[in-house]
Protein backbone atom coordinates (compact mmCIF):
# COMPACT_ATOMS: atom_id res chain seq x y z
CA UNK A 1 0.00 0.00 0.00
CA UNK A 2 2.90 2.29 0.81
CA UNK A 3 4.22 1.52 -2.65
CA UNK A 4 0.92 2.48 -4.32
CA UNK A 5 0.75 5.66 -2.23
CA UNK A 6 4.25 6.66 -3.36
CA UNK A 7 3.28 6.02 -6.99
CA UNK A 8 0.10 8.08 -6.69
CA UNK A 9 2.02 10.88 -5.01
CA UNK A 10 4.50 10.87 -7.91
CA UNK A 11 1.88 11.65 -10.55
CA UNK A 12 2.00 12.92 -13.28
CA UNK A 13 5.47 11.34 -13.41
CA UNK A 14 6.47 7.72 -13.03
CA UNK A 15 7.50 6.90 -9.47
CA UNK A 16 10.00 4.30 -8.35
CA UNK A 17 11.66 2.69 -5.39
CA UNK A 18 13.69 -0.26 -4.18
CA UNK A 19 12.76 -3.53 -2.54
CA UNK A 20 15.07 -4.69 0.23
CA UNK A 21 15.35 -8.09 1.84
CA UNK A 22 17.14 -11.31 1.10
CA UNK A 23 18.47 -11.43 -2.50
CA UNK A 24 16.61 -14.11 -4.41
CA UNK A 25 13.99 -14.65 -1.73
CA UNK A 26 10.26 -14.20 -2.29
CA UNK A 27 9.51 -11.89 0.59
CA UNK A 28 10.20 -8.17 0.59
CA UNK A 29 11.28 -7.11 4.06
CA UNK A 30 11.57 -3.36 3.52
CA UNK A 31 10.38 -0.84 0.98
CA UNK A 32 12.41 2.27 0.12
CA UNK A 33 10.62 4.80 -2.10
CA UNK A 34 13.12 6.85 -4.09
CA UNK A 35 13.14 9.85 -6.37
CA UNK A 36 12.70 9.46 -10.11
CA UNK A 37 15.74 11.36 -11.40
CA UNK A 38 14.21 11.40 -14.88
CA UNK A 39 11.09 13.19 -13.53
CA UNK A 40 9.08 11.97 -16.49
CA UNK A 41 5.75 10.30 -17.14
CA UNK A 42 7.43 7.96 -19.63
CA UNK A 43 10.67 6.81 -18.04
CA UNK A 44 12.18 6.41 -14.60
CA UNK A 45 15.66 6.39 -13.18
CA UNK A 46 16.39 5.61 -9.54
CA UNK A 47 18.19 8.75 -8.34
CA UNK A 48 21.82 7.60 -7.82
CA UNK A 49 22.04 9.43 -4.50
CA UNK A 50 18.98 7.48 -3.31
CA UNK A 51 20.56 4.25 -4.56
CA UNK A 52 23.60 4.98 -2.39
CA UNK A 53 21.39 5.78 0.61
CA UNK A 54 19.35 2.60 0.20
CA UNK A 55 22.47 0.50 -0.33
CA UNK A 56 23.85 1.78 2.98
CA UNK A 57 20.51 1.30 4.74
CA UNK A 58 20.18 -2.24 3.40
CA UNK A 59 23.68 -3.03 4.59
CA UNK A 60 22.87 -1.69 8.07
CA UNK A 61 19.81 -3.96 8.12
CA UNK A 62 21.89 -6.97 7.07
CA UNK A 63 19.87 -7.14 3.86
CA UNK A 64 20.31 -6.54 0.14
CA UNK A 65 18.51 -4.75 -2.65
CA UNK A 66 16.37 -7.51 -4.12
CA UNK A 67 14.18 -5.67 -6.55
CA UNK A 68 12.71 -2.45 -7.84
CA UNK A 69 9.20 -1.09 -8.30
CA UNK A 70 8.00 1.63 -10.60
CA UNK A 71 4.70 2.92 -11.91
CA UNK A 72 3.22 3.10 -15.36
CA UNK A 73 0.97 6.12 -15.51
CA UNK A 74 -1.03 5.18 -18.60
CA UNK A 75 -0.15 1.60 -19.46
CA UNK A 76 -0.57 -1.82 -17.91
CA UNK A 77 1.34 -3.30 -14.99
CA UNK A 78 3.60 -5.17 -17.40
CA UNK A 79 7.28 -4.59 -18.21
CA UNK A 80 7.77 -2.36 -21.25
CA UNK A 81 10.48 -3.14 -23.84
CA UNK A 82 12.60 -0.47 -22.12
CA UNK A 83 12.05 -2.17 -18.76
CA UNK A 84 13.18 -5.49 -20.18
CA UNK A 85 16.22 -3.99 -21.94
CA UNK A 86 17.36 -2.27 -18.74
CA UNK A 87 16.65 -5.15 -16.34
CA UNK A 88 20.20 -5.91 -15.33
CA UNK A 89 19.72 -8.35 -12.46
CA UNK A 90 18.16 -11.77 -13.14
CA UNK A 91 17.75 -12.31 -9.41
CA UNK A 92 15.61 -9.27 -8.76
CA UNK A 93 11.84 -8.87 -8.55
CA UNK A 94 10.54 -6.24 -10.94
CA UNK A 95 7.27 -4.84 -9.63
CA UNK A 96 4.98 -2.75 -11.78
CA UNK A 97 2.21 -0.51 -10.48
CA UNK A 98 -0.29 0.59 -13.09
CA UNK A 99 -2.17 3.81 -12.43
CA UNK A 100 -4.06 3.57 -15.70
CA UNK A 101 -7.44 2.77 -14.15
CA UNK A 102 -9.27 3.93 -11.02
CA UNK A 103 -7.91 0.98 -9.03
CA UNK A 104 -4.10 0.71 -9.13
CA UNK A 105 -2.88 -2.71 -10.22
CA UNK A 106 0.29 -4.26 -8.80
CA UNK A 107 2.10 -7.12 -10.52
CA UNK A 108 5.54 -8.61 -10.05
CA UNK A 109 7.89 -10.21 -12.58
CA UNK A 110 11.22 -11.92 -12.92
CA UNK A 111 13.15 -10.80 -16.01
CA UNK A 112 15.91 -13.17 -17.09
CA UNK A 113 17.76 -12.88 -20.42
CA UNK A 114 14.92 -10.84 -21.87
CA UNK A 115 12.29 -13.38 -20.78
CA UNK A 116 9.44 -12.20 -18.55
CA UNK A 117 7.87 -14.45 -15.91
CA UNK A 118 4.98 -13.21 -13.80
CA UNK A 119 5.18 -13.88 -10.07
CA UNK A 120 2.36 -14.02 -7.59
CA UNK A 121 1.96 -10.96 -5.40
CA UNK A 122 0.72 -11.50 -1.92
CA UNK A 123 -0.07 -8.42 0.11
CA UNK A 124 -0.38 -8.85 3.86
CA UNK A 125 -3.93 -8.15 4.95
CA UNK A 126 -4.37 -4.83 6.63
CA UNK A 127 -5.86 -5.44 10.03
CA UNK A 128 -8.03 -2.64 11.36
CA UNK A 129 -9.97 -3.62 14.49
CA UNK A 130 -13.70 -3.46 13.90
CA UNK A 131 -13.38 -2.77 10.17
CA UNK A 132 -13.75 -5.41 7.48
CA UNK A 133 -11.83 -4.23 4.38
CA UNK A 134 -12.51 -7.37 2.35
CA UNK A 135 -9.97 -7.59 -0.44
CA UNK A 136 -9.38 -4.93 -3.08
CA UNK A 137 -7.81 -5.93 -6.43
CA UNK A 138 -4.07 -5.35 -6.44
CA UNK A 139 -3.97 -3.83 -2.96
Amino acid at each position, binding site marked *: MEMVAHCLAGLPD*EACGLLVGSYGADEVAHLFPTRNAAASAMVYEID*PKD*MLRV*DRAARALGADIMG*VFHSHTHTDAYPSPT*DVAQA*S*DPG*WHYVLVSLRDTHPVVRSYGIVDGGITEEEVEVPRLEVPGLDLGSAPGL
Partner: protein
Amino acid sequence: MAVEVRLPTVLRSHAGGASVVSVDGATVGEVLSKLVAEHPGMAGQVLTDDGTLHKFVNVYVDDDDVRYLQGLDTPVKDGAEVSILPAVAGG
Protein backbone atom coordinates in the same frame (compact mmCIF):
# COMPACT_ATOMS: atom_id res chain seq x y z
CA MET B 1 46.68 0.37 -2.28
CA ALA B 2 44.33 -2.40 -1.17
CA VAL B 3 40.72 -1.33 -1.29
CA GLU B 4 37.46 -3.05 -0.40
CA VAL B 5 35.18 -3.32 -3.43
CA ARG B 6 31.51 -3.72 -2.58
CA LEU B 7 29.67 -5.64 -5.26
CA PRO B 8 26.06 -5.21 -6.36
CA THR B 9 23.88 -8.33 -6.16
CA VAL B 10 24.11 -8.95 -9.92
CA LEU B 11 27.91 -9.40 -9.87
CA ARG B 12 28.23 -11.50 -6.72
CA SER B 13 27.83 -14.84 -8.46
CA HIS B 14 31.04 -14.03 -10.39
CA ALA B 15 32.92 -13.63 -7.11
CA GLY B 16 31.76 -16.88 -5.58
CA GLY B 17 28.85 -15.17 -3.86
CA ALA B 18 31.00 -12.62 -2.02
CA SER B 19 29.56 -9.16 -1.49
CA VAL B 20 32.97 -7.57 -0.79
CA VAL B 21 36.34 -8.34 -2.36
CA SER B 22 39.76 -6.87 -1.67
CA VAL B 23 41.52 -5.48 -4.75
CA ASP B 24 44.81 -3.62 -5.25
CA GLY B 25 45.04 -0.46 -7.28
CA ALA B 26 46.04 3.20 -7.14
CA THR B 27 43.06 4.54 -9.07
CA VAL B 28 39.44 3.51 -9.54
CA GLY B 29 40.25 2.43 -13.10
CA GLU B 30 43.07 0.18 -11.92
CA VAL B 31 40.92 -1.34 -9.21
CA LEU B 32 38.09 -2.11 -11.62
CA SER B 33 40.40 -3.55 -14.29
CA LYS B 34 42.00 -5.75 -11.68
CA LEU B 35 38.58 -6.78 -10.38
CA VAL B 36 37.48 -7.93 -13.84
CA ALA B 37 40.83 -9.63 -14.49
CA GLU B 38 40.42 -11.59 -11.24
CA HIS B 39 36.74 -12.32 -11.88
CA PRO B 40 36.34 -12.71 -15.66
CA GLY B 41 32.62 -13.37 -15.33
CA MET B 42 32.24 -9.65 -14.72
CA ALA B 43 33.70 -8.73 -18.11
CA GLY B 44 31.51 -6.32 -20.00
CA GLN B 45 29.37 -5.42 -16.99
CA VAL B 46 31.62 -3.00 -15.15
CA LEU B 47 33.86 -1.58 -17.87
CA THR B 48 32.99 -1.43 -21.55
CA ASP B 49 35.23 -2.80 -24.29
CA ASP B 50 36.95 0.57 -24.65
CA GLY B 51 37.68 0.71 -20.93
CA THR B 52 35.08 3.26 -19.85
CA LEU B 53 32.60 2.84 -17.03
CA HIS B 54 29.52 0.85 -18.06
CA LYS B 55 26.35 2.94 -18.06
CA PHE B 56 24.49 0.36 -15.99
CA VAL B 57 26.73 0.94 -12.96
CA ASN B 58 27.69 3.86 -10.75
CA VAL B 59 30.93 3.72 -8.77
CA TYR B 60 31.55 5.47 -5.46
CA VAL B 61 34.74 5.98 -3.50
CA ASP B 62 33.45 6.07 0.08
CA ASP B 63 30.38 8.24 -0.50
CA ASP B 64 31.46 10.16 -3.58
CA ASP B 65 30.29 9.30 -7.11
CA VAL B 66 33.47 9.07 -9.21
CA ARG B 67 31.70 10.80 -12.10
CA TYR B 68 31.94 13.97 -10.00
CA LEU B 69 35.56 13.30 -9.08
CA GLN B 70 38.16 12.25 -11.67
CA GLY B 71 36.20 9.33 -13.08
CA LEU B 72 38.34 6.26 -13.55
CA ASP B 73 41.44 8.34 -12.76
CA THR B 74 40.16 9.06 -9.24
CA PRO B 75 42.94 7.99 -6.85
CA VAL B 76 42.09 5.62 -4.02
CA LYS B 77 43.71 5.44 -0.60
CA ASP B 78 44.63 2.25 1.22
CA GLY B 79 41.59 0.83 2.96
CA ALA B 80 39.10 2.94 0.99
CA GLU B 81 35.72 1.49 0.12
CA VAL B 82 34.80 1.39 -3.56
CA SER B 83 31.13 0.60 -4.10
CA ILE B 84 29.73 -0.55 -7.42
CA LEU B 85 26.02 0.16 -7.48
CA PRO B 86 23.57 -0.61 -10.28
CA ALA B 87 22.11 2.23 -12.33
CA VAL B 88 18.44 1.27 -12.29
CA ALA B 89 16.10 2.67 -14.90
CA GLY B 90 13.29 1.79 -17.21
CA GLY B 91 10.20 3.13 -18.91
